[in-house]
């Protein structure tokens, strides 16, 4: 048999089937069955009628929303300085942003824990704040890099044009820079918002005993409750699908307008 180009895709197809499609089928199967293997919606009904689990969902949403907000707040000016800064050390600072990504994040968290412990005296006093600090510390590079990318591509003449047309510095940022870097912001938000909902290791390590979605899944599976664990996973999956659909729609609309590429 002759090796055709399309045969090169076979290993990828096998991988996709084994590690993406099959697990998805299994998760869906368990999510919609009970302990006796009968199809049921009860898992979902239980989840959405139980104030405790709903509370976990809301808490996760809040943690990830606050994390995303602070990441954005820090990342945007940082990315601007990195991309437009005329000072010679900017390559070095970019390295500083990227480098932590090479170190396992539990190790980084251990270090952070020591620092926070030293500053606050007792970690248990501010569990929520510590969680947010840990999460922001963990996810910041994922917010900086896409924004940095879109800032690099930004045409400086557009900012000058806005100034020329009478816009003040602040007006230039709001009316020109933000729309131009929107693709980077969206991609940064997608990369932080969703993982932050399940990143329960941060909470565990920083002694925050409140559950988030990740901890819920973890606890179900570790007590061999495949059905409820799969149900929560399926719920999150649905959430992810919705968010990425919205952001891709947004990106498409932008692409249509600009005729350019969106990262």
């Amino acid at each position, binding site marked *: 048999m002759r090796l055709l180009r399309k045969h090169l895709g076979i290993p990828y197809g096998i991988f996709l089937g084994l590690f993406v499609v099959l697990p998805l089928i299994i998760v869906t199967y368990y999510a919609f069955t009970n302990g006796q293997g009968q199809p049921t919606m009860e898992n979902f009904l239980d989840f959405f009628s139980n104030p405790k689990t709903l509370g976990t969902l809301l808490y996760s949403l809040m943690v990830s929303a606050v994390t995303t907000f602070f990441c954005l707040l820090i990342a945007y000016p940082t990315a601007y300085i990195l991309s437009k800064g005329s000072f010679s050390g900017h390559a070095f600072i970019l390295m500083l942003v990227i480098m932590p990504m090479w170190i396992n994040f539990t190790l980084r968290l251990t270090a952070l824990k020591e620092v926070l412990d030293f500053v606050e005296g007792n970690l248990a006093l501010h569990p929520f704040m510590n969680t947010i600090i840990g999460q922001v510390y963990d996810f910041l590079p994922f917010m900086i890099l896409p924004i940095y990318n879109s800032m690099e591509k930004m045409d400086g003449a557009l900012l000058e044009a*806005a100034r*020329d047309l009478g*816009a003040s510095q602040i007006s230039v940022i709001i009316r020109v820079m933000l729309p131009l870097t*929107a693709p980077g912001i969206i991609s940064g938000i997608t990369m932080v918002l969703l993982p932050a909902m399940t990143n329960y290791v941060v909470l565990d390590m920083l002694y925050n005993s409140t559950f988030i979605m990740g901890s819920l899944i973890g606890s179900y599976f570790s007590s061999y409750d495949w059905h409820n664990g799969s149900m929560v996973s399926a719920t999150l999956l649905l959430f992810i699908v919705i968010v990425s659909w919205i952001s891709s729609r947004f990106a498409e609309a932008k692409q249509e*307008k600009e005729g*350019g590429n969106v990262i």
Partner: protein
Amino acid sequence: MEKEHLIEIENVTKSYVKDCPVIENLSLSIERGEFLTLLGPSGCGKTTILRMLGGFETPTEGRILLEGQDISLMPPNLRPINTVFQKYALFPFLNVYDNIAFGLKQKKMPKDLIRTKVENVLEIVDLEGFEKRQISTLSGGQQQRVAIARAIVNEPQILLLDEPLGALDYKMRQEMQLELRSMHSELGITFVYVTHDQQEALTMSDRVVVLADGIIQQADTPENIYRKPSNIFVADFIGVSNIFNGFVTGSNRATFLSKEWKCYHDQAQGHKINAMIRPENVRLVESEKGHLVGKVISTMFIGNTYETTVAVGKNEITAYSEELLENESEIGIKIKPENIHIMPFDMSINRFVGNLNEDLQIVLEDIVFSPDISKVIPGAYNDGTTWRSAEKKPLLLKGKKIEVFFDPADVKLSDDEAEGEVVGNIASVIYIGDHYVYIVRSENDWDYYVDDEWLWNVGDRVSIVIPKEKIRYKMV
């Protein structure tokens, strides 16, 4: 009506790197309502001037006045000046309407007034009905019009245009030239236009400012720039020209091409001059009827005529002819006196050009120059083995073309042949008030200009002392 200076650029110097000015002590006034073009080769500083007018750069020295008020440090958003950018710089996330309305919205103008103004200006640029279109769906020419509309809708006192037609194809460019011209007379706004295209500058402008190395070479009407260039640079940069070295040999007489010609000038007898003749003014006739006889060495069809090169002795003359002339054929050349333009020979500077050799020296027939590379290229340094640029990239210096300058006032004559760098004979003396200007011709037939307060005689053998620190170098 009395003409009033709208803009006054006063002794402006701009350097990005210390002591390496892009614009040097430049003064220029711009009249209200005129179409002024800044013309020059790339890197001559024309865009820098425009950016200083727009407020994107501030002068290192000197100031810029708008109606008598110093605006040198005023930020761009407060100036009654708008710019049409080189690549249009339209906002891709806004449609045509919102792009044009951007400036008016910044001024917090009422909505219906904005609408009237935008519609009005779309009519001027011939884009009625394009309000809702996205920028990416427009052609280059249409984007150009939107960019112009976006600037003029703000009714600026001055419109700056930075090579706005550079990205358009030839036909489109010609159309837009005419349109810009008629827009200018309709709107009555002062236009300051930057281009490197001399044809564009000549067809569109009321006044052309020719720039080179950040210095104004000539500021005049297009006709005068073309017919009466003030120096060889302008003559050479604008159109095709024949330039010859010569001497004034009488009132309305000059000798060049080994022949005395009748021509009109106000130079004093004996002065060195450059004579310029445009190719369309060189008439090719039968050999016995010409002032000069030459031999055709090449003919090239250039669209509407043949560009013919004729050799006369060691010189070459370019002429236009309607018919194809055979190579090697003898031909007569006739030039009318009014078509000969005489320019004073530039003796204000000694200028040489050479290439760097392996030892980073410029070896000319008479002298060897050893420039300090760190001064030729700002920020360059030697890491022990190689020269590197300020960005730390290794520099390939060998073979690089370098210009060498020194001021006649900085050099001295000496009768001790060993004292100076070059030995030669004095070829001419001109007395200028308090000193003499000498032309010293070396054995290799190179001319040097020297200002000296002592009197020497023509034919004297002298050496020229050039202090090392007074020699300036520049990369070409």
